[in-house]
Structures are given as C-alpha cells and as structure tokens.
C-alpha cells in the first residue's frame, strides 16, 4: 500500500514546542549563555570559556554551601523518616480518629512556604515570639538571629514541622493497605510487636518509603523560602544553602556569569542524584 506522507502533523506539535521553548529551553540556554560569557555592562558580552566554572568549583563559598545542604538533607531524612513511620504506626486505623488525624496531618502541608517561614520567624523571636520568649524565660540562651546553632535548630524544627506529615501520610497509605489476615497470622505465629513491624509492616511500606525519601531529599536539597524568611541565610553564612547563595550571587551581587555557572552545576547535581534514585527504584521494582 502506498503510504501517504503528511508533514502537517508537525504543526499540531508546534504550540507545545513553543510553550516548552519559552518556559524551559530558552531560559536554560540563557543560563548556559551567561555561564560562558562576561560583561562589564552596556550589554557588551565577551567569551569567557570555562572561567566561571573554574571559579565556582574552586570556590570555598560554593563547597561550604553544598556541605550545609548535604548536612541539612541528611539531618532532615534521619529525623523525618523514622518520626513519620512512628506516627503512621500509631495513627488509628478505623473510627472517628482517622479523619481527625488525617486533617491534622494535612494542615502543615496546606500552608504556603513563605507563610511557614513567617510563622516560625515570629514564633522564634525572643521579644514577641511564643517559642523564643518562653525559652528565654526558662533560662535558655536562645536566639536564632545571632547564634548559628539556634538558627540551625530553628530551621530544622521548622522543616520537621512542615514536612513530616508527608512521610506520615505516605506511610499510612502503605499501612492501611495491609489486609487484616496478616496481623491475624502474625498473632497465630506468635510474632512480637517488633517482628510484625520488621516482617509485615516495613516490607509493605517499602515502596512508599522510597518515594518519601526521594521527595524529602529533593525538597530539602533545594530548600529556599523558609530559611530565607526566617534567617535570611544568617547569622553570617551559617544557614546559607545553595539556593540562597545563588540568589545572593545573581541578584545581590549581580554576578551573572558565576551565578549561571553555579546554576548549571546545581542542576547537574540534582539531575545526577535523581538519576541515582531512579535507578535504585527501578532496580528494586525489577527485583519484585
């Protein structure tokens, strides 16, 4: 049969192509463009080669921010995953308590990020904030504005408050899908509470836990709004994460070339880590 070639179909894809070009490809290429050029103003750009990348990769400031990001993500995962599992295990499985718990858990997730930041910024203030004032009154020398340790604690507690719910809800979804017969069989087999967790609940939560870890890692690795609102990256640079540093560099210091190079490195890191997670998850699926 004679095949009809009709290239008009390409026009159908054109709107999407334009949309993607404007929203993703062109901005990305702009960044690439900036990262290999330099300017002294007047919109005069000249070729800079890999200079900005050299600078970023050899800058202590970048690696320190990266270190802070990794430490922050690690702490977040270490706290939020077990805490989320623990809360999910203790949530009621039936009765009137279920909707109450679910709504309570969903609340922090419904609050806009900058509002969360503002809430904790006020909450932690030592002059008018309930938390800051109370800690002071109890004799703790708490002040997130000039004590780096206190600033970190505040940002971490804020994130735990904001995002543990997500882990809880994911784990809970995994838990309620376990048929009653499993618990009955475990009773008959004389399994301890720990054995039930280890051999029934944990394996059934495995998949959702992987998703929870992935989401919490990515979100915490690109955290910006909340610490920016609470600490503005301070005191000093102690809570300046990569994203905050990037904005400082690009908008604060108008160092477009370096900021562009940093964006690309940041982007590649996130892509690499996502790829690692994706590979691990699909390998796990294949094993199933």
């Amino acid at each position: 049969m004679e095949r009809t070639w009709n290239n008009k179909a390409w026009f159908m894809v054109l709107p999407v192509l334009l949309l993607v070009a404007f929203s993703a490809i062109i901005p990305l290429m702009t960044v690439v463009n900036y990262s290999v050029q330099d300017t002294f103003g007047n919109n005069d750009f000249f070729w800079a080669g890999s200079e900005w990348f050299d600078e970023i990769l050899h800058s202590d400031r970048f690696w320190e921010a990266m270190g802070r990001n990794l430490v922050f993500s690690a702490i977040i995962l270490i706290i939020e995953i077990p805490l989320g599992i623990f809360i999910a295990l203790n949530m009621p499985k039936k009765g009137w308590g279920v909707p109450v718990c679910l709504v309570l858990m969903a609340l922090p997730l419904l609050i806009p990020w900058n509002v969360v930041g503002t809430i904790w910024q006020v909450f932690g203030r030592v002059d008018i904030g309930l938390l800051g004032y109370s800690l002071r009154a109890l004799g703790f020398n708490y002040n997130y504005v000039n004590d780096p340790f206190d600033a970190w604690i505040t940002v971490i507690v804020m994130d735990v408050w904001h995002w543990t719910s997500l882990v809880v809800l994911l784990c809970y979804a995994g838990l309620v899908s376990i048929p009653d017969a499993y618990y009955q069989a475990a009773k008959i087999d004389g399994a301890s509470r720990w054995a039930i967790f280890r051999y029934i609940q944990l394996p059934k939560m495995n998949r959702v836990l992987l998703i929870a870890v992935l989401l919490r890692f990515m979100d915490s690795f690109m955290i910006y709004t909340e610490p920016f609102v609470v600490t503005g990256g301070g005191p000093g640079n102690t809570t300046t994460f990569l994203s905050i540093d990037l904005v400082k560099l690009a908008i604060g210091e108008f160092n477009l070339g370096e900021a562009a190079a940093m964006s690309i490195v940041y982007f590649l890191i996130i892509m690499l880590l996502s790829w690692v997670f994706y590979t691990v998850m699909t390998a796990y699926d294949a094993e199933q």
Partner: protein
Amino acid sequence: MARIDCNHIRHAYGPHPKSDKDYALKEVHHAFEDGGAYALLGPSGCGKTTLLNIISGLLYPSHGELLFDGKDVTNLSTQERNIAQVFQFPVIYDTMTVYDNLAFPLRNRGVPEPDVDRKVRETLDMTGLADMAKRKARGLTADQKQKISLGRGLVRSDVNAILFDEPLTVIDPHMKWVLRSQLKQLHRRFGFTMVYVTHDQTEALTFAENVVVMYEGEIVQIGSPAELFERPKHTFVGYFIGSPGMNVMPVAVEGRSARLGSQTIELPGAPRAGITGAIELGIRPEYIRLGASGMPVSIRKVEDIGRHKVVRASFEGRDIAAIIGEDEDIPADPKIAFDPAGINIYADSWRVEMGG
C-alpha cells in the same frame, strides 16, 4: 491435637444484642472430635467464619465457652491456644525465604535452632516445598504460597487444631484438586484435627468426614456426606447440597400417604402423629424416575450436563427437577414416580421421622 468443645456459644458483633437477629452466631453447641476432619459449610454470612475465628481466638464469643481437651480456653489469646489457621488469601512473609517463613513460628517461641531446622525440614518434605526452601517467598505462585501458610501451622507439632478459612479461593481450579487431596493425605497420615470453612459443597464433601452445615447463624445438620445427601434434616440442607438441589413441595399428609393437588404419593412410613405447621415433601432429583407410568408431568427443558441429564418439568403446577441417565430417552407421554427411599417429610422446614 485436641478435642474442641463449643458450649452454647453465641456471638454478636454489635455491643447490645437484643433479639436473635442481632446474633451472627445464634447458638452453637458442638464437639469437634480429636483428629476429625470437619467442614463448616454454608452460604456467605451464615456465621461459619465467625465460628472459626472464635475457635482460633481472633474473636471472643459474647456467650458460651470453648474447651480444648476439657480445658477452658475461652479467654485465652490466639497464641496461648496454640492453633494454626490458613486464611482465604495466602499470608506469607515476603522478605523471607520459604525456609525462614516456616521457621518463623518456632523462632518466635524460642525453640533452639537445631530443633527448628529438623522441624522445618520435616515440614518442607510434608508440603512438597523442599526444593524451593532457599527461595524468597514473594516470587511463588498462589498455591505454593498457600502451602507455606499451611506449613507454618504444620511446623508446630503441638498445635491443637488446624483451621482453614476458604483456603482455596485464589487457587487455580486444577491446583485446587491437588491441594485438597494433599490435605486429605496429611490428615490421614498425621491425624490433625482439621476444621475447614467453605461455601463450596464439592470442597466440603470431598474433604471432610463430617460436614457441619450452617444456616443463618445456626448449625442445621452435622453428618457424613451421605447422610446430608439422603436425609437432609432441614430443607435448607436439601437445597444447598446437591445439584440441582432437593425438590420441596407442600403436601397434606394422611397416614402413609401424602396428597399433592390431585396426586397421592405413597410414603415409606407414617410420620409420627400430630405434626403441625407447614408440611412439605422433599425428594432429590436423583430419586425421581421418569417413565411411561406414574404421575403426569409436562417437560419444560432438558439440560445435558455430561454425565447425566437434568429434566426440568412442571408437576401439579410447580417446578420439579429430575435426573436421568445420559442415554435415557424422554418418553412421549412423560410420567414420574417417586422412589420411596428418597422421600423425606418436613414440618416447618425441619425433617420429621417416619415410622415403618
């Protein structure tokens, strides 16, 4: 293994049962003999799973007591009762190997590892899982998984009873038959007390020596498959067992004969005098003879189901089913006769004894 006594057990799921209607289990008073193979047979919602869960201790009865070998276990936990239960859907521990699955109940009870190993190997041989001992349990087929569930019960040599809650629901038809005969073999070799819940009459009749038929929260009859077939105590048993079920028709009884419309049917004996209530005559399709003599019927339909034919006919204005041989022909002027051996008389649905 143990004898299980259910003493006047009643159970209601709601908190304040008032009438009989609120009870999922109205009253069960029955003994499961040591080493017996029992089937609990009945339609969905008749209380058979409730009774099973009461025996295993997953439910505590609202009234009555449960004895294992004369010892009151009504308030003991599942673990203390030491029973095994196989559920409708295979329950396995996904992350463990087949071997570890079987070892799990023993390790939980602190059995020393050499004994665990010996028992597990015995059980692997018994269930035919020996060649997959080292495999992860999650990749197995439904029937293999169900064998693991069973194996976790068998591995504890001291279990009081093995309970089955419709264990073949998710098994492929051809494997059902294999598993059922393996269960029977295990029972013959080792003499476990087995209670098997099912709504499938073939399963019940082939598995058990004693079939307990339940209907609306009550035991309506306990008997061998033959007894259930020939002398159903309740019209429900007649309907539920057999394919097609028993023909039941309202009659008026006078001495040794029953009258239905214009026909008079000879009874094998005279029902005891003074029976009251709705009187019915029950006869299985297998005991109806179709031929040239007897009572006239009009045939509506003949179903050829392979080994025999089912004749659907109209007799005195009511539907009646008869079974005839595969090679028998339908007479031009069909008439039926009832074999007296297959006639039962019911008053208010319960069977009435007939004197000679």
